[in-house]
């Protein structure tokens, strides 16, 4: 049981998918202008990434490994995830228009998110079992959401600040992201204890 907890904490904080592994930077920079959209994107990614990691584990273990087709991982994972995202969007749109409003345009965006492909690939390379895969997927996506929401909160404030002319916009966002990344490096010390 503690093993799963370590996987979870490790995925959320120590090896944060955005700030330490530097994956999924496009949504991190792109949809962090407003706090509300960051919440939506975080929720959508958490959902898709957890599902995607589980689904890709099943594909890998029961379809690719028995036939020795590990070299097809990348392509089959991305197809699976893309289909999953589409399916999820259709179902959500029908069953819960409210949630669809919140997740809105972010669901299709996730398809091309490198974090969503990267996490299942890292997952299979770590030889996790099924439950551990789900925990790892959930932890990574929670880490992604955490970084995204924190960053959006900071950016909203920075937008209202007296930033020197030449630093406005993406430049100051990059500086902020760099500082956040430095801060998250500090969690690397957690595994000492």
């Amino acid at each position, binding site marked *: 049981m503690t093993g799963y907890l370590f996987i979870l904490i490790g995925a959320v904080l120590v090896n944060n998918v955005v700030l330490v592994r530097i994956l999924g930077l496009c949504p991190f920079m792109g949809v962090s202008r407003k706090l509300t959209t960051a919440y939506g994107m975080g929720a959508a990614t958490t959902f898709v990434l957890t599902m995607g990691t589980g689904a890709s584990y099943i594909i890998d273990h029961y*379809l690719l490994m028995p036939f020795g087709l590990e070299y097809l991982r990348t392509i089959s994972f991305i197809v699976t995830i893309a*289909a999953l995202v589409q399916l999820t969007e259709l179902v959500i749109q029908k069953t819960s228009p409210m949630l669809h409003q919140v997740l809105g345009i972010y669901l299709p965006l996730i398809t091309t998110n490198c974090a969503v492909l990267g996490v299942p690939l890292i997952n299979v390379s770590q030889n996790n079992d099924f439950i551990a895969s789900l925990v790892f997927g959930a932890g990574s996506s929670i880490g992604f959401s955490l970084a995204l929401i924190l960053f959006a909160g900071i950016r909203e404030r920075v937008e209202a600040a007296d930033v020197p002319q030449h630093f406005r916009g993406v430049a100051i966002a990059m500086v902020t992201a760099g500082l956040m990344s430095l801060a998250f490096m500090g969690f690397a010390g957690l595994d000492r204890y």
Partner: protein
Amino acid sequence: MDGILYAIAIMALGGVVLGALLGYASTRFKVEGDPLVDKIDSILPQTQCGQCGFPGCRPYAEAIAKDEADINQCPPGGDENIHKLAELLGKEYKPLSEEHGIEKPKQVAIIDEKVCIGCTLCIQACPVDAIIGAAKQMHTIAEDLCTGCELCIPPCPVECIHMVTVVDTPDTWKWQKPGTASRVIPIIPVMATIQSEHA
């Protein structure tokens, strides 16, 4: 050789299964209507003036939602509206397109009641029923309801309708934003200071 065949078979199988699943879902979970149109429509100023090239605000909202119209075609909404639309749709801000008109202060139409002949043509033109009157009777405009769309001006055969700018009253007057102190650090050319010291 077997490996390739397996690979092709598995990818084909995956493609067929996922494709079938998506195809089924898209018919099974079909939704009508577009909530985006309502959101766009709520931003538009509802003057119903048609300056955007569409017959009213809602048709324009529908066109924006379908990506058939640009977001910068609404002169009454002005700059503020374009910013709001850009934010809602995640598009880049553009200045108001000049071919659709320029942003004017809010106006209302006034009928010169001495000249009006009661032809009812303006009543037919008014998109918000803000003109009161009957045939061969003098008409008048309910100023509170007038959106300032100017649609009643061209039909008037006797040119008795004029636009007047709405003036601020103490109740509608807005406080100015306090002037933020400029925090510019003056840059003095180094040569100039050296020269002045030597002089």
